[in-house]
């Protein structure tokens, strides 16, 4: 059974082209979802569970309504025609669109899905970035001035954190780059579960909009962590936090299942585990983390919703305020490694290409990724040192400091690869170096924070905020932008402008360090998190920090515009401009064609740049191509 012959799976060209007028799938999804919401919400609030005063929207009704909305949305956007009908043996009328339209509907092509994930993530990044700009605008003064109520500021913080973590941090490198690159990198024409993948991507915009529009239901004050029992006394907006995060984590869970199965079962002949590309190692470790921890947090959020709408006293019983914190951080700390592990893998993917040197100590790179994955489940309680006994603190302090060792393996591999190499300075390589520098600052302040004495002093201050922004923006977002430049010729067949790329990189590096470097100082001077007003002596420093934050936001916007321009109108370039040896560069980027007409056979090491030995044999139309 080959791809394309099965109903519902295939490329736009392989079916007879049927002129079929229909509503745009996105509008269909909105209408199916909207009608479903109104019906389900009405049935609950008017018939099953009317509440005093007979409001149309109640907490139980909006929850049930949203679940029906989610189902209607994914079915309308293409899952009904493309996946559900064929699954029940019905004839499907689904025809994949061509051109730009394929990005605005359900698709089974991993390249289209990857780009859909990347665009959704970038959208989430700029929506949440706007929220960050509003926060910094408020913090320019030590009094309330932009937001009338503190609840609005806290909701903005929550929207910023939630969208950044669950639609950007967890998604961009895994759902986006992973879906696009992994099948090509391992010499396959598709991912393992293309229909599931085609459905899962549409949960991302739904989740982003659910969280972004949560203030319509009420403000919530818990931030991206949804802390109970605080959440129980928040206005109803917290429901949209739970539901939006449910959609986003469900999407990431489906991505993890799909990419794990893809890497395990769809590798080309000869692509042994020993030859597996570093980015694939990063994706498989992060996917295992996702498979272990996302169900855990989804169940926790389900308990949160139930204790809200039934209501159950799951988290409000006397003596149990820590219950939720434990459950949340059990997932929450692996989450930050979910964000950063693929970034570490990207360093090891891009650096050998840019130095023309073999990857140094590859085994240690792989071991580092795997040990980060394993240790990340043993450190969660360092978020709660203020609530613990010394005897409980010490093991978590120990493991937290230990995790810096496998993390440092990534530095070992990266520095060993650069060492005495002919390092090519360009936008991707520069951004990778910047990412390494930033993540080092984030990591070292993390070692300080793992120390109970310091932790108890700087707990809940901007020092902590500075620390995790250094790891996540500094580590992951810089690597993401590097990857966008590095694979831009792959995505579009075009090249970015080197000068603009380098200027943009330096721009965000300076703005980033000036913003978040000052967060450490603000924190040490006593600036607390979670407050829109603060003592007046901190005002001048907050004012200038905000200016740099705005510059940082503009810098990201500059990269977005530059990358967009390069994809549309940049100079055309050859197929493999970096002379990389990994398989994705040998495959077709044409969205209407399979990656490989005949599956390649891997015969060598992808990262051996010091010899010209063949890496893979690709049977092509013009005879066998040996790369």
């Amino acid at each position: 059974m080959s791809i394309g012959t099965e109903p519902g799976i295939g490329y736009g060209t392989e079916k007879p082209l049927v002129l079929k007028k229909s509503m745009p799938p996105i509008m269909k999804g909105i209408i199916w979802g909207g009608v479903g919401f109104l019906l389900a919400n009405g049935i609950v609030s008017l018939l099953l569970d009317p509440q005093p005063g007979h409001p149309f929207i109640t907490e139980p009704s909006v929850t049930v309504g949203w679940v029906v909305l989610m189902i209607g949305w994914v079915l309308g956007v293409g899952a009904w025609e493309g996946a559900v009908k064929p699954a029940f043996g019905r004839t499907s009328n689904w025809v994949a669109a061509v051109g730009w339209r394929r990005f605005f509907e359900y698709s089974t092509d991993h390249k289209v899905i990857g780009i859909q994930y990347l665009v959704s993530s970038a959208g989430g990044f700029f929506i949440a970035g706007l929220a960050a700009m509003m926060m910094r605008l408020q913090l320019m003064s030590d009094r309330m001035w932009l937001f009338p109520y503190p609840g609005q500021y806290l909701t903005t913080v929550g929207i910023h954190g939630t969208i950044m973590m669950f639609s950007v941090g967890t998604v961009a490198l895994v759902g986006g780059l992973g879906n696009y690159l992994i099948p090509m990198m391992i010499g396959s024409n598709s991912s393992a579960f293309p229909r599931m993948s085609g459905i899962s991507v549409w949960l991302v915009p739904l989740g982003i909009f659910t969280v972004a529009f949560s203030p319509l239901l009420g403000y919530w004050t818990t931030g991206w962590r949804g802390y109970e029992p605080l959440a129980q006394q928040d206005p109803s907006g917290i429901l949209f936090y739970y539901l939006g995060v449910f959609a986003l984590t469900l999407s990431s869970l489906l991505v993890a299942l799909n990419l794990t199965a893809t890497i395990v079962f769809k590798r080309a002949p000869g692509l042994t585990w020993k030859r597996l590309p570093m980015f694939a190692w990063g994706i498989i470790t992060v996917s295992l983390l996702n498979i272990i921890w996302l169900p855990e947090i989804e169940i926790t959020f389900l308990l949160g919703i139930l204790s809200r709408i039934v209501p159950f006293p799951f988290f409000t019983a006397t003596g149990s305020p820590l219950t939720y914190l434990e459950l949340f951080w059990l997932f929450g700390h692996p989450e930050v490694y979910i964000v950063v592990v693929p970034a570490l893998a990207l360093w090891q993917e891009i650096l050998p290409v840019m130095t023309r040197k073999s990857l140094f100590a590859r085994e240690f790179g792989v071991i580092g990724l795997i040990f980060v994955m394993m240790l990340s489940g043993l450190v969660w309680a360092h978020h709660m040192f203020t609530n613990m006994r010394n005897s409980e603190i010490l093991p978590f302090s120990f493991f937290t400091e230990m995790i810096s060792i496998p993390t440092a393996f990534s530095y070992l591999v990266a520095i060993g690869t650069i060492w005495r190499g002919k390092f090519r300075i360009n936008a991707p390589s520069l951004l990778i170096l910047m990412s390494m520098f930033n993540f080092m600052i984030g990591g070292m302040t993390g070692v300080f924070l793992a120390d109970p004495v310091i932790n108890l002093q700087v707990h809940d201050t901007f020092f902590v905020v500075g620390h995790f922004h250094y790891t996540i923006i500094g580590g992951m977002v810089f690597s993401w932008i590097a990857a966008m430049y590095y694979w831009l010729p792959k995505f579009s067949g075009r090249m970015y402008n080197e000068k603009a790329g380098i200027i943009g990189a330096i721009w965000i590096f300076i703005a980033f360090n000036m913003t978040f470097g000052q967060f450490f100082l603000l924190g040490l001077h006593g600036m607390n998190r979670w407050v829109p007003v603060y003592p007046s002596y901190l005002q001048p420093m907050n004012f200038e920090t905000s200016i740099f934050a705005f510059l940082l936001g503009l810098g990201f916007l500059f990269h977005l515009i530059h990358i967009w321009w390069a994809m549309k109108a940049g100079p055309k370039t050859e197929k493999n401009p970096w002379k990389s040896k990994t398989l994705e560069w040998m495959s077709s980027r044409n969205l209407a064609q399979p990656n490989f007409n005949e599956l390649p056979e891997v015969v060598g090491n992808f990262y051996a740049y010091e010899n010209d030995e063949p890496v893979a044999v690709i049977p092509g139309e013009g005879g066998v191509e040996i790369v």
Partner: protein
Amino acid sequence: MSDSVSQNPSEGSASGAPVDWSKRQLIVGTGALAAAGIVALFAGSGVENAVRSIVGPTVQSGNFSVYQGDYFFIPNYMTWRAGDLMTMTLHNSSPTHYHEMMIGKGFDYQPSQLQDLKVQFHTDFWDGVHINVLQANGVDNYVENKAIINTNSLPAPWLIKGVGQGNTSPTLMPGGTLVLQFTVPNKPGIWHYGCFVQGYIHYLAGMRGTINILPA
């Protein structure tokens, strides 16, 4: 639609293929929804005021309910007419917090480190008004001030009598309900209501509303 068939030269395959849905519908549909969403998110109260000024206020009469939450009132805007006999059910729907409901104009202030806090209304709306308590469950206390409160036959250890204890205001325990009957006094104009408990922070956090009292 004019663009229902479009050329697709850039993809190298399937060029000239019929495409089955309209670009204009997509852009107009999602654009309109986005605009509606942004207005709802950032300009909701402006729209509400505009509609109210066009349609005119809905005058409350007879039985009506006011719900207290953390930290808001539903509704947060009411219109009463002087001389009407009203029965107000006040219900604290918070599972955790005590809430009160003062009605008045202007503010009394107390200085604090960060800002001057509004501690209560300067002019008490209930001054000289007769209030009949019809039902009281889970009411922590009821400050009488200059109102004349008739608790009928209900046990009334919670009535705080005498002037100087703050404005007239009931404080409801979580889940508490109080049903009051009163005739709207002839004090037309814009009045405000709010909850000032927990160090006056509930009012600051948005637990407030407006009553427009129309002349008889």
